[in-house]
């Protein structure tokens, strides 16, 4: 008797959908290589975090209902973002205080929702298929993933199986990059000062590749590095793990 394949709903996230589908395809490849049956519900948009962090609970709640209804039928929900996974895992249940029916649905969804690297390591316990990347990378720990979900070892464990790749840590990989959603445009000058420090920390490592698990941070850091004329490539960790690195890096020049 063979165990049926776990049915995974991929929540691709609004940023990946818009800016970088490669991350979504990398996630699909990693999940399918790991023996999952992957679906991507077409009606997905956003997890509601922008509203939630702007104080608009009503707006966040409306989107949370949408996401719950769309994804609750899967065995697992996997997200290539610690920030969006944190929204569903940690914050969704709080949006339905005093509504036992919805709250239960939110809690059930939270329990089966996982950030991609955590799902591969903590839930499936698999190593990705062998891939190669010649070079030195440094890894930025995105805030929500690190502090809401405890992501730290998982991406590094997965990266350790990449042939030819050396990881050199920043002096403070856990420091915020200054993205913070609307913060980066509302308080852009402060956001810039923060990402400035991050860029400097990256440069000191001498790495030629900056990896992370959240596209928000990656856009911010890549945008900063590009403006400074840095040659450091910026990619989502899933791209390297899936070997889908033939296209240009984030913000990188196209052929």
């Amino acid at each position, binding site marked *: 008797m063979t165990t049926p394949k776990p049915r995974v709903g991929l929540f691709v996230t609004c940023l990946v959908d*818009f800016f970088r589908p490669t991350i979504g395809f990398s996630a699909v490849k990693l999940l399918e290589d790991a023996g999952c049956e992957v679906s991507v519900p077409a009606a997905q948009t956003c997890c509601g975090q922008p509203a939630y962090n702007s104080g608009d*609970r009503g707006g966040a709640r409306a989107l949370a209902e949408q996401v719950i209804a769309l994804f609750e039928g899967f065995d697992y929900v996997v997200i290539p973002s610690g920030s969006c996974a944190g929204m569903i895992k940690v914050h969704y249940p709080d949006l339905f205080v005093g509504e036992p029916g919805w709250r239960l649905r939110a809690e059930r969804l939270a329990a089966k929702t996982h950030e991609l690297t955590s799902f591969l390591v903590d839930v499936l316990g698999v190593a990705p298929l062998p891939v190669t990347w010649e070079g030195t990378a440094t890894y930025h720990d995105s805030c929500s993933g690190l502090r809401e979900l405890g992501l730290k070892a998982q991406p590094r464990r997965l990266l350790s199986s990449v042939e030819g790749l050396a990881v050199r840590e920043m002096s403070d990989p856990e420091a915020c990059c200054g993205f*913070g959603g609307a913060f980066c445009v509302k308080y852009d000058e402060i956001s810039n000062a923060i990402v400035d420090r991050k860029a400097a920390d990256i440069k000191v490592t001498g790495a030629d590749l900056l990896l992370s698990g959240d596209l928000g941070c990656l856009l911010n850091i890549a945008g900063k590095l590009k403006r400074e004329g840095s040659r450091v490539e910026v990619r989502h960790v899933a791209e390297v793990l899936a070997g889908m690195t033939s296209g240009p890096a984030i913000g990188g020049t196209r052929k």
Partner: protein
Amino acid sequence: MSLGLTSASFPKNAHAALANPPLLKAIAHIEETLVGGRRRAVDALPEFDALRDAGRDIKAHTLKHLDLYLEAFEKKVVEAGGFVHWAADAAEASRIVLDICQAAGARRVTKGKSMITEEVGLNAFLGANGITPVETDLGEYIIQLRGETPSHIIAPAVHVNKEQVAADFRRVHTDLDPKRNLDEPTSLLAEARGVLRERFLSADVGITGANFLVAETGSTVIVTNEGNGDLTQILPKTHIVLASIEKVVPTLEDVATIMRLLARSATGQEMSVYTTFSTGPRRAGDPDGPEAFHVVLLDNGRSAMLGSEFEDMLRCIRCGACINHCPVYRSIGGHAYGSVYPGPMGSVLTPSLQGLEKAAHLANASTLCGRCESVCPMRIPLPKMLRHWREKEFERHLTPKKARFGLAVWRFFAARPHLYGAATRLAAWGLARLAGKNGALSQVPLADGWTRWRDLPAPEGGTFRTEWAKRGRK
């Protein structure tokens, strides 16, 4: 209220701070000194996280029984021969302190470092009534000479460099020999020590805050490194303690637990140099100590925080760890917040104390990175409370119109997947075309907040959902 509350002009303040290289250099030290110190101290104590849980539980228990512990504390102070005064707000607290000073015929008053006296604006009030207290903590003394407010709750003069201190001493200490070398921190300290020693010995009243009020014994506790707090409270005939109501803890055991967290979180010390328990005035036959002992208990909005979503904030022990680890504070320093308390703890507390209208920027000026909560010894969920303030701002329609409009547009599309798909498809395609081979944009309409400082990486072209559908997948 104390001088210079400018939270409403936070972005302007931040802009000025970012154009102040000496300030930025001073703040940069924090990484090695305070942040590094804390990390080393925490690593050296395996029970640190268990102590954090215990500390949180002590404060949570105390807050649920705050009325009873305050009554117990008051009873013990009175039994020891001291006086307890209750102040509903800042004005009443200042008035009580002034009355005690006047009744004691005080001309000279010294002060230990106390954020609560900053909160009530005590120095300005006493000064307006003919009594100017001399700050005796070295950092507080320096900023008093400069006519400034503290920029950090435990390192009030962290923004000042030694050349500035030397200039201030030469300006104010008129007896100072112009040839005296003040190039080094040691010589500056010696100068301040000499001047302040005289002040200590001639003071009529000493005013301190308290890190703890112990209900079991009626003791007030101060935790300091310099010894100035002790000289302030033992030398004058009258000692006044001004403390907010949430400083009470049940027992000495509870003090011990929180003490183990406080200095490690604040400066990376295992213990501050002086932890002093004062209980009532001097006893019969005692060779020294104050003859009168007054405790002023201040509410100033705290009782209303109980039972609200901000109750957890009352667990705060003012260690400053959240401030030291905050990427925003580390970019702009403390004064830009324009509030008595800077950093994450200040951004949660200030709207409670001053009203959300004046302080709405503070809750928004955070990336919600969560590092504050991760280092808070009392495990206060600071990001959650910042978000609560944002919710209150949104509910009360205080959110700026532009942001509200943007949110409404986004919400409209996000709730309509088909429209959303079409709109994002078009925008992604357009931006990708616009960026061309460069792969990034240095200017984007409506996004100048982003592109002023960094390029915007261009979308790859098609959205994921379009590409996915093209492959015939579901």
